[in-house]
């Protein structure tokens, strides 16, 4: 299962402003995305029924973001491209919490392909559900 994410001018402009980038690469007619903007695919374009995070079943109120990685196999995507995104849960594991209980970890991976089907970027997120304290 996959979904599409159009890379859009207004969103690139808004995201660049939010991360305080004035880099000219993010301006003009066909700007390049700020590198961490791929995070928006799962947040703004992923259909509810494909939501990997929901499948993890982590409690939002005990959620922490552990790690995040982006790999680009070519220059980061530009406005005008439409990316095809496939997201999966790569692994889940548990560790004892420092103050007792169990911490759960979920690794979510997304692959981004261009209109030719070429893999252009990948995203890997480690999400943590902290141990229950009460």
């Amino acid at each position, binding site marked *: 299962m996959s979904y599409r994410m159009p890379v859009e001018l207004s969103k690139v402009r808004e995201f660049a402003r*939010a991360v305080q980038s004035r880099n000219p*690469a993010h301006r003009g007619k066909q700007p390049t995305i*700020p590198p*961490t903007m791929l995070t928006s695919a799962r947040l703004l374009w992923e259909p509810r029924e494909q939501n990997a995070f929901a499948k993890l079943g982590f409690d939002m109120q005990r959620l922490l973001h*552990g790690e995040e990685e*982006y790999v680009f196999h070519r220059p980061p995507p530009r406005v005008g491209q439409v990316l095809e995104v496939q997201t999966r849960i790569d692994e889940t594991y548990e560790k004892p919490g420092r103050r007792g209980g169990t911490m759960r970890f979920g690794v979510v991976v997304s692959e981004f392909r261009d209109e030719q089907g070429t893999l252009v970027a990948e995203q890997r997120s480690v999400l943590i559900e902290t141990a229950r304290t009460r």
Partner: protein
Amino acid sequence: MSAPAVRADPRALCAGDRAKPRRFGPLTRTDFVRYQGASGDLNPIHHDEELARAVGYPTVFGVGMLHAGLVATYVTDWLGVECIRRFTVRFREQVWPGDELTCSAEVTDVTREDGAELIVQVALACVVQTGATALTGSAEFRFAPAAA
């Protein structure tokens, strides 16, 4: 807030080279909200004061990916956007309203072969004014060989 890093010439880089550190902030709840709207991550823990306190936090805390985005801004000002090939962060400590973040970057490896790409590895860190480390990370850039 301090000025963006000056663009470096990748061909002149050596392991140990550092970008001038850059300060962001003091971060505000509006900065958190602006990022949440831009990215689509509307987790209320970052803007709903009552909810954050009900769950046990003293107040709302910053979105990790905002801080990661600021570090990405910093390192792409230094080495460019087109040539970035990897960007990795590990979140360490939470960031609170009013915090100032200082970003630093240091070249850890330069691999250079005649006629081939220049591959530059960079270590990244983001420290809060208290001395706590908000995040650590790394990035890889690949530059095409200069025209003969």
